[in-house]
């Protein structure tokens, strides 16, 4: 079981966290202006890279705050954590 470093609480056990899917998928500014296909891309399509992946996590059994993390999907290792609104950091995977 990994330790995940909550940006507010520090390292905590993995079971305290909840996964929230790909990060930086913003809600569209004007959904009504989108085609069905553009809207479906927002709703249904997510990246599935092998390697570094920016994800949303929630410290659901701790401070209950959301944050972002870059995780290597090959090793599950967290490469970086950062707060919502911050840019994805450059990290080597």
């Amino acid at each position, binding site marked *: *079981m990994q330790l995940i470093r909550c940006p507010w609480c520090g390292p905590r056990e993995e079971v305290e966290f909840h996964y929230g899917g790909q990060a930086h998928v913003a809600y569209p500014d004007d*959904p*009504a202006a989108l085609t069905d296909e553009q809207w*479906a891309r927002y*709703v249904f399509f997510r990246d599935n890279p092998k390697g570094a992946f920016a994800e949303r996590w929630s410290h659901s059994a701790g401070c209950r705050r959301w944050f972002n993390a870059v995780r290597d999907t090959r090793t599950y290792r967290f490469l970086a954590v950062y707060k919502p609104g911050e840019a994805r950091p450059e990290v080597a995977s």
Partner: protein
Amino acid sequence: MRVDGYGRIDRSRTLGFTFDGRSYTGHPGDTLASALLANGVHRIGSSVTLGRPRGISAAWSEDATGLVQVEEPFPEPMLLATTVELVDGLVARGLGGQGRLAEVADTARYDRMHHHVDTLVVGAGPAGLLAARAAARRGERVALLDDRPEPGGSLTGTERIDGRPSREFVADVVAELATHPEVAHLQRTTAFGRYDDGFVLALQHRTDHLGADAPRTLSRQRVHRIRAGRTVIATGAHERPIVFADNDRPGILLAASARDLLHRYGVLAGREVVVFTGDDAAYAAAVDLADAGAAVTVVEARPQAPAHWAGAAADRGIPVLTGSLVAGTEGAPGDGRVSAAVVTGADGARTVLGCDLLAVSGGWNPTAHLFSHVRGTLAYDPALGAFRPGEDLDGVAVVGAANGTLDLAGCLREGASGERPPSADGEPERTPGAIVWRVEGPHDRQFVDVQRDATVADIARAVGAGMRSAEHVKRYTTIGTAHDQGKTSGVLASAITAELLGVPIEDLGTTTFRPPYTPVAFAALAGRERGQLFDPVRTTALHAWHVGAGAVFEDVGQWKRPRYYPRPGEDMEAAVLRECAAVRDGVGILDGSTLGKIDVQGRDAAVLLDRVYTNMMSNLAVGRVRYGVMCGPDGMVIDDGTVLRLAEDRFTVITTTGGAAKILDWLEEWVQTEWPDLRVHLASVTEQWAVFPVVGPRSRHVISRLFADLDVSNDAFGFMCWRDTELDGVPVRVARISFSGELAYEVNVNAWYAPAVWERLLAAGEKHGITPYGTETMHVLRAEKGYPIIGQDTDGTVTPHDLGMAWAVSKKKSDFIGKRSFSRAENTDPLRKQLVGLLPTDARTKIPEGSQVVEFCPDGALPAPPVPMLGHVTSSYRSAALGRPFALALVKGGRQRVGDVVHVPVGDALVPAEITSSVLVDPEGNRRDG
């Protein structure tokens, strides 16, 4: 047999035990295995597939053969006789490869403990003891774990360390560790798995060795959950058997195990001993067994015996047959114990050496399991003929024999971690061993995994079938998958596979070790989370009243909710029909406290609710209530409920019972990740408010009688309004919300006052025949009105429009979660499944929920298979109001098909049913205002 002057058992006390129905004695300090061998019992059981006699093949947890079922004092299957500590009154029997779960409940207690340490040392042999002492001296917080009853690892007591007997060295280090308050030293504790970030799980046996004296207050086993900054793996090595014909008989032991039995328990496992080895260490066994009185012959695979040991053997008259191999064995009639070793000499000649103990050493396999658990790669070491840790892992040190270091001096040096290592006095230098994995012979009698009855012939079949990797051969042959997880057979399987494939073993590699290192009972993993403590039970403030009223409960998530309140002689159907009639004809009362309640506060509270509900909430007046639906971005309904506006900047959001936590999470997620600019705060108040709907045409009388200050007229207190009042100074909020179509008042009160207010409501309603009702009646009443239960009548593929709730979808709001999806082509298809009513035309059959809906061809026959499915039944009940059963169903294009007759398979029959509107009772809504 037991020999005087050896062993650390307590001979002053005698313990009685029973094995396979016969009585024996042993001593404190014995294991079941040592006591059996002391009594001359060598056959323990039979092999799982072939039924061959099997005995004890090693002295500790690497034993592959000595499986027993313990019956008393604590019934448990599939234990190794070598790891069962003897207690008075122990009853056990040998197994034929499979055990039997106890039929009585396990009344023992299991628990867990958490540790956070700088350094975790696994193994209290010479290397581990020194590593722990060095860390303790540095002032670190340390955990030292060891799986045997006493520390010292493989030290037999014959060695000398720093000029003194090795057991004194062990005692000194242990005593020093005990002076450090931050050192946890645990024996009988097996680190069985290592995971990410220095996380190790260990199982401690706490009471079994105490027998009947075990205090009931102690947990039997404890799982230690250890987070370590650094892990020192000092787990030693397992001696490796050699594969030859009939190598599975009782009386064939690993050489160091035979020596361990002598020095630990005073047991000489045979009088006529053949030692078969290509490794120096087995000579120590040969010499010690001879000194204890056995007649010993050494069969040495190497052309020359090491000089030091050749001399020691000569001194004792031990013949050493160099350049020789044991190719097979003979067995005794009866217990099948080995009676002779068939030896092939350097000249190729066969000799049959009579023996009752064949002690084998093929060298050593480092116990690198914990290293492998976290994907540390193991590299082949040709000097060892085995695999050892082949890379550096962060936060891990592997020392001593686990690292492939087999001499005591080397173990002491590696364990000392930079401190001055103690000296290993008089230790002869190790000479290179001969790597012998297998001696040529008949494949089908050469056992590789003795526990699985898997032979070289099985590996040959796997290779013949095209298996080319160690992992595939393992799964094809099952080698390494038994109780012992291949502790002694794994390297042999790789070596023989490589031999048969004609590739170097280093190219083939070995299988990955996986947790657990030794078997762990589910009871230990479960710990205290069993029975009542398995999952929290949530009860409402009225639970005691419900129990007293004879309620039958149902589980709704973690909640216990009254399902119905049967009167004497009533079954559920009768009780529910009575409760339903009471509500529609008079007045009923429900404990609705489990509904989720979220306090939404802040300047932008209304903005948030407009974005998450399909309908408009910002134009709701203070004092009013509105029903709302929430959807995901895909437009599918995720929850529904009512919203009370308490103030311009404050709402109470009511969710379904099951959706309470999920919807709070959902709102927080959007607020934190998409709309952090909104000034809004969310808090669960589910537990703080008790809610009692008082429902039925006479509910107004009950409410007006109890709350004299409240004007309950329709004009003053209309439908979907809430009013605050009080009862003897206790604030009460009453809301006109109806989940049944009847006139109804939901009474909300601080949960502390819930029992008192409930009793007052019952008293006020007594002359109106107020009837407590449960969730089943609530479900029937709402279904008669076509109100869906999210999660029962929906399944994540249902839009508000599918439910006939287009009226709850705002057309004024420019956007809300889900809005854009409603106009997707898929969601405007007129053939989407829609919620409708179904009335079985026989007016008698209650259609099972989940049934499929089909229709006949115009000619009255079923279509050819596969029969198209039109939808399915989501809710089905008997209705007191309708006097017949009815159902709700999701049916393709259902709302356009009202009046059509479809069919529902029920058992072998096809039940005709008419599609109707989903609202079957009071479609005009006349009953709402009483």
